[in-house]
């Protein structure tokens, strides 16, 4: 069935809430307003206000409520209106949720999902245009998934809700309206398993989240020039699917790592670390990263466009690693 990324997430929530009455949704505007991005549309009516809970604008507070609920046996899904607001809640995410199992000596696991849009949309300016995956993936105790397609959004959110550990679901604000095929019936995508979204022999693009769409565009553009790209969608950035990365680079001998966020200590750095170590003798060129400009996101439309990683930069990077004149 063709559906939007937004509806795919809604399906996942509905199916899991139907399946397990310990699952509940909590966050700003998730109930009466039906969700800031309408992901929770209809859920209040179906499940009632005990399971679809509006909160005050207190990210740290309701994140903490969620962790406590998870510790006593519920399976909360905490929606952040955007991950930019979740900075305030990171103490609960990093110091409580991620460490509880360890620090309680295994007595308390925290089966919680923190989800919401991540990364830059359009002209939301410096404070609201940030990609947080490297911050979150840095933390032992967290799993971090970054679905790019409706099918992966549904399958990964369902797997996240069923996971007994805290899972971060980073959605793409610009992805909510994108459409794609979702398999009928129960659809789960395992956490930590990448998907080869396009098969090619000339260069690997390793990416995740919204940038997968850019990679596929690049693949289409370059295919017309006789260059075929092997597009690896990590889908989860923690744990990371090392065998999938290695297999792709061994096929192509070249890699471009494409990510939405900043370069320093980014996810791409982690990928490059894997590639240089596992694929050293397979590399015919240095690995090149494509990422956001190392600056706060500008508000001005032209500057914002220049700061974001895009199709042109991706194609240029592929040509560089292939030693082809741009």
């Amino acid at each position, binding site marked *: 069935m063709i559906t939007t990324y937004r509806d795919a997430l809604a399906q996942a929530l509905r199916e899991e809430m139907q399946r397990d009455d310990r699952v509940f949704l909590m966050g700003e505007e998730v109930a009466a307003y039906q969700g800031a991005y309408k992901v929770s549309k209809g859920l209040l009516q179906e499940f009632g206000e005990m399971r679809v809970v509006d909160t005050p604008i207190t990210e740290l507070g309701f994140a903490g409520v969620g962790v406590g609920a998870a510790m006593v046996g519920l399976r909360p899904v905490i929606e952040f209106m955007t991950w930019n607001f979740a900075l305030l809640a990171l103490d609960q995410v990093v110091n409580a949720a991620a460490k509880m199992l360890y620090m309680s000596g295994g007595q308390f696991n925290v089966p919680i999902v923190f989800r919401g849009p991540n990364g830059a949309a359009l002209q939301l300016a410096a404070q609201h245009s940030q990609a947080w995956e490297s911050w979150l993936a840095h933390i032992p105790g967290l799993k971090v998934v970054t679905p790019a397609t409706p099918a992966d959004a549904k399958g990964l959110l369902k797997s996240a809700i069923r996971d007994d550990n805290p899972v971060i679901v980073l959605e793409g604000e610009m992805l909510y309206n994108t459409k794609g095929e979702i398999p009928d019936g129960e659809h789960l995508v395992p956490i930590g398993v990448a998907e080869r979204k396009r098969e090619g022999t000339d260069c690997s693009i390793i990416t995740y989240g919204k940038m997968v769409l850019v990679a596929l565009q690049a693949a289409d553009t370059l295919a017309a020039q006789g260059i075929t790209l092997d597009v690896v969608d990590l889908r989860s950035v923690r744990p990371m699917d090392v065998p999938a990365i290695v297999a792709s680079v061994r096929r192509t001998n070249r890699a471009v790592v494409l990510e939405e966020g900043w370069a320093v200590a980014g996810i791409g750095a982690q990928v490059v670390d894997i590639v240089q170590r596992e694929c050293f003798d397979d*590399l015919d*060129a240095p690995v090149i990263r494509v990422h956001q400009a190392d600056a706060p996101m500008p508000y001005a439309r032209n500057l914002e466009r220049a700061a974001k990683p895009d199709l042109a930069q991706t194609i240029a990077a592929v040509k560089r690693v292939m*030693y082809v004149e741009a």
Partner: protein
Amino acid sequence: MATRVVMEALSPTMEEGRLVRWLKHDGDPVVTGDVIAEIETDKAVMELAARADGVLRRQLLAEGASAPVGQLIGVIAATDEDIASLIGAVAPAAATPPPRAPSATPGATPPPTPRVAAAVEPPPAPTAAPVAVAGNGERVRSSPLARRLASERGLALDAVAGSGPAGRIIKRDVEKRDVETRDVETRAAAAPLATPAPASPAPAAPSPAAPAPAPPAPAPARTVPGASTAGDGYRDAPLTQMRRTIARRLSESIGPIPTFYLTVDCDVTRVSEMRQAMAALDDAYRVSVNDVMLKAVATALAQHPEVNAHWLGDRIRYFERVHIGMAVAVDDGLITPVLFDADRKGLRQLARESRDLAGRARARTLTSAEYTGSTFSVSNLGMFGIEAFTAIINPPEVGILAIGAVEARPVVQDGAVVVRQRMRLTMSCDHRVVDGATGAHFLRTLRQLIENPLLLVA
């Protein structure tokens, strides 16, 4: 103050030098102008002089190793001066391996089995495997993948031209080089001789050649230039700077095999007399001029291993044994059956074998082992009345001898014109291996043997 000792440009065209010998050692006091080392440039062995007073604190290049011009090879400083920052990551000389990588162990390779399609044996990659250091000691920029591929395919990285940034050798360069090597093999197998002619036991083309299958015991080793790696029946000599430069420059000049030709006019009157005398004894002793030539060439080669060799791209393989390829014309083509260990066979045996091989070549019943493995080739168009000609070298061999017709010609002898039996020999030489004088020495020996055929049994 510490002074860097670097590889200096000791000839105008020198790009790198090989350190032949250190004359000062770690801890030796030196004054400016002292000769501290001998460096082999592309032209000669030169002296490297100290440019400062002090103590040669550290040798940073092993004897026998090469370094590009400008590379730090030593440090002169006061006895107690801290030179750690100058040395940096450069390993001490003792730890610097000679530029040939130890991994491929070419010398230990057993003689390859005869092959039909491959005239050029891919050299075991002495430079590829673990580090990207060329045979000349210079760092070769290459991708890890290119190094691995080169190693797998037995290509020397320094024989590959890099097309990546700053000359980096990448996958496509290795693949291109691999294809070129195959092309050379194909060409070598297809068109080795200038003059294809329909007849027998005559013209012909050296056919694919590879190191021989191993019959009897190896002959005693003979002197050829260069320190070398011994194998079973051959010795691999690393290329000297001069040899490398000669090979590169001459190849640029005249294509893949820089060939030159040497012609010598021999008096074969005594050969004719000897043949007549033998035939008069019994038909069993009947031998052809060609048989005598094979014997003479084999004997001369045994005395001149410097032309009994293969050019392998990054080194020269000098053979201890003499296997002569004998070009034979067959319908629509040429083939070069091999007389193995020809220098150790008698004239009658060579006559028998060459007749047998030529006959079976025309009947197309030779096995591949019988036409591969030659170390030098001979082509004879004399029976067609060809006075002199040039034959084309069958790579990786480095020489071929073209034998012209025996003719009665007037020559001046002791101040008088007399009629003598004469024959012209033309040797094609691969200048990467054989220099003019080298070829000339070989031909001089050959002529002496032909003009005094008793030496063939001496």
